[in-house]
């Protein structure tokens, strides 16, 4: 049975073995693999800074590093994780690999631009890493003026240049996806037959394309202010530092949806596949992605309630922020309804999906706490905020990413990873995550501010819990590297459709051909037809 399966003789991975054949490829799948390697490296560099942060916070005194070094740690952690890991993670790896086969296309609309986006990403990463080698940055990933424009004497400009450049890689990915989804769908692949993963990426791409240019121009303004002595945000010349915050968050709030929307898309695929049911309320889930993308653009000032914006503006933004919770909740309810009476299973990707649902719900609900104007005055800039966004970005986005990676790994490589170790790692990630970040809600509510390297003695227990949990979480992240690499040589051959899933990509061989489809496919089925059409369990060629 399983051992009679063979890796196909011709596929995208053995279509050329030279370095050239990778660096000059136009194949979206190879580009996705190179993105996977690049962002994994960035993830572990960012992780090292997190280790430094948690090590320092194991004791109340600032004894491991100086306050200045600590500032650099959390800044570089944030910069790398946000701009060089989370933003490219699911779109550039899974989206890149999967969108063409999912819609029945041979490649993205602009293969060369796709490769260009990877090179741009590398150049941006090189700038940012360079600035870290020559001394680092200490402004926080938010780069607030006037500190970043005049006071800080660290490498602000090279870091900003790196982020500016990487932004174009994100824009090009989004642009490519939008055009691909509009123009490259196979005959019969109507908008409402698109997998929800594709809908989520469409919404994400809109945010990337509309938001990223604004952070780019904001960084230009910061750069000319710091580098050339211009005065756009300089209060001494009548400029307004709060304008910087408005511009920054006009991108950076939507950017959190660049990070979470693709994970929501992965989640819809996982939930439907592993409960063997059509997704409940397909069009609601699809449109909720668009709604999140749209609402995401009108809530940014909830980061600035105590920055001196007017009370009326604050009230409006508080109210609007609540509205984002509605489409998010629509998704969670629809997934729950999909699970209901489904034939649910506990394969590794699904373990991540269960974890995701709980953690995303907690992260989203605490977002509502913070969006409540009166409460935020107390909680702003405390560890409560840190816990909130880690529940969504780590508990949500990274869980979604890992769930997706485990789900599509057999498609990408043709091989299965160790079921035992992958379940262990999924459980470690879930447990480690909660032990790390739940205490931060408490310690934040008690008033521990973020971005300090020392804290009152009575908060030590909660902080030690957090550091201990981080150790488990870290090990949980290392484990997949080992069994994924091992699976490349020794993993059982997966066959085209090891999960019995319904998407078009599962009709291809694993790993797919360079051109994905030999002939243009014609789609005649509705999406997620688990109940209507007989999909054979563990289907083979």
């Amino acid at each position, binding site marked *: 049975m399983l051992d009679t399966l063979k890796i196909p003789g011709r596929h995208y991975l053995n279509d050329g073995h030279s370095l050239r054949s990778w660096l000059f490829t136009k194949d979206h799948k190879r580009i996705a693999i190179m993105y996977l390697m690049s962002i994994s490296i960035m993830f572990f560099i960012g992780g090292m800074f997190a280790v430094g942060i948690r090590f320092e916070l194991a004791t109340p005194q600032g004894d491991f590093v100086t306050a200045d070094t600590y500032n650099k740690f959390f800044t570089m952690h944030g910069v790398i994780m946000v701009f060089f890991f989370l933003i490219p993670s699911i779109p550039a790896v899974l989206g890149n690999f999967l969108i063409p086969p999912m819609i029945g296309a041979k490649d993205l609309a602009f293969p060369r631009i796709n490769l260009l986006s990877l090179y741009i990403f590398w150049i941006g990463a090189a700038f940012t890493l360079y600035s870290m080698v020559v001394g680092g940055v200490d402004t926080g990933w938010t780069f607030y003026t006037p500190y970043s424009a005049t006071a800080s004497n660290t490498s602000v400009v090279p870091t900003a240049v790196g982020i500016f450049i990487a932004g174009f890689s994100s824009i090009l990915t989004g642009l490519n996806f939008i055009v691909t989804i509009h123009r*490259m769908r196979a005959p019969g692949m109507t908008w409402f037959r698109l997998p929800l993963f594709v809908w989520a990426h469409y919404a994400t791409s809109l945010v990337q394309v509309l938001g990223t240019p604004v952070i780019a121009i904001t960084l230009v*303004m910061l750069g*000319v202010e710091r580098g050339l002595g211009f005065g756009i945000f300089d209060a001494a010349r009548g400029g307004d530092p709060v304008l910087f915050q408005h511009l920054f968050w006009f991108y950076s709030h939507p950017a959190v949806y660049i990070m979470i929307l693709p994970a929501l898309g992965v989640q819809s695929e996982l939930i439907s596949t592993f409960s063997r049911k059509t997704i409940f309320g397909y069009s609601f889930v699809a449109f909720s992605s668009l709604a999140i993308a749209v609402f995401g653009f009108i809530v940014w000032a909830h980061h600035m309630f105590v920055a001196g914006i007017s009370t009326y503006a604050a009230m409006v933004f508080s109210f609007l922020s609540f509205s984002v919770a509605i489409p998010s909740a629509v998704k969670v309810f629809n997934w729950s309804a999909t699970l209901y009476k489904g034939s649910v299973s506990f394969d590794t990707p699904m373990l991540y999906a269960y974890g995701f649902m709980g953690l995303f719900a907690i992260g989203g609900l605490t977002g509502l706490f913070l969006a409540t104007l009166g409460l935020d005055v107390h909680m702003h800039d405390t560890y409560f905020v840190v816990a909130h966004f880690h529940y969504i970005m780590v508990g949500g986005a990274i869980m979604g990413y890992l769930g997706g990676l485990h789900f599509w790994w057999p498609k990408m490589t043709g091989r299965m990873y160790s079921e035992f170790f992958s379940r262990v790692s999924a459980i470690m990630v879930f447990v480690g995550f909660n032990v790390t970040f739940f205490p931060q809600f408490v310690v934040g509510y008690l008033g521990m501010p973020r971005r300090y390297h020392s804290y009152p003695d009575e908060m030590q227990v909660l902080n030690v819990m957090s550091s201990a949990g981080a150790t488990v979480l870290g090990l949980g992240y290392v484990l997949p590297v080992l069994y994924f690499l091992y699976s490349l040589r020794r993993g059982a051959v997966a066959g085209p459709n090891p999960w019995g899933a319904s998407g078009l990509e599962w009709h291809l061989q694993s790993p797919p051909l360079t051109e994905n489809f030999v002939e243009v496919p014609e789609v005649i089925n509705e999406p997620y037809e688990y109940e209507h059409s007989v999909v054979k369990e563990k289907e083979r060629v």
Partner: protein
Amino acid sequence: MSNAVAQADHHAHAHHPAQQHHFDTMPQQKEAAVLGMWVFLLTEILFFGGLFAAYMIYRVWYFEAFAEASRRLSLFWGGLNTAVLIGSSLTMAMAVRGAQTNKRTATVNWLILTMILGAVFLGVKVIEYQDKFANYEVPGATYNWMYHDERAAAAGGEHAAPAPGAAHRQLALSPGQLQRTTQIYFSLYFTMTGLHALHMIIGIGLMSVITWMAWQGKFDDQYYTPVEMSGLYWHFVDIVWIFLFPLLYLVERHQ
């Protein structure tokens, strides 16, 4: 293959040499390029949008300072450049027309003319920037709002007119206030026109490649997308200037 996928009939006709393998037809390829270009221009609008937002806020706050600072720009050079750019949009449109109608030499000539007009624009910009440097009107440590008037007074004695019409205007702002807030105006002036000029330089670079391709005879009435896309980009850069000119040069210029 399972029942979910049927094979669409495969049409085997001759492909245009410019058709890429992952597109089924030339129109599909073209539509993708056009949509991609418009999405790109959308990102450009938001890119400049951040600056326009900052401009709007500060113009409302410091209107008088903006009006005063705006008078330091030359209407002659600004007006000339506007005419040059609009002219270059015309030549660009002619180049696209040439490509569509298989006129190779015409396409190449119109493209070269467009590049020349672009270069003229940039040359004028250099003259204008030069003047700002000479008058200490570049924001930063050396910025000196008074220098321009003092120099004019020194040169022309009693008859010097510091700024056109200044005698009739009652300024509510002290020289100290002007020294501070006009720097915001010039910060925006240099950032906006600087980025615009950078776009022009990229456009000229792009066009030299297109011109070379046109010269090689790469385009015909079936395939002229690159010419058309460069045209869209060039018109966009032109339109940005059409907004920059009144916003920067014409703040209360009627007095």
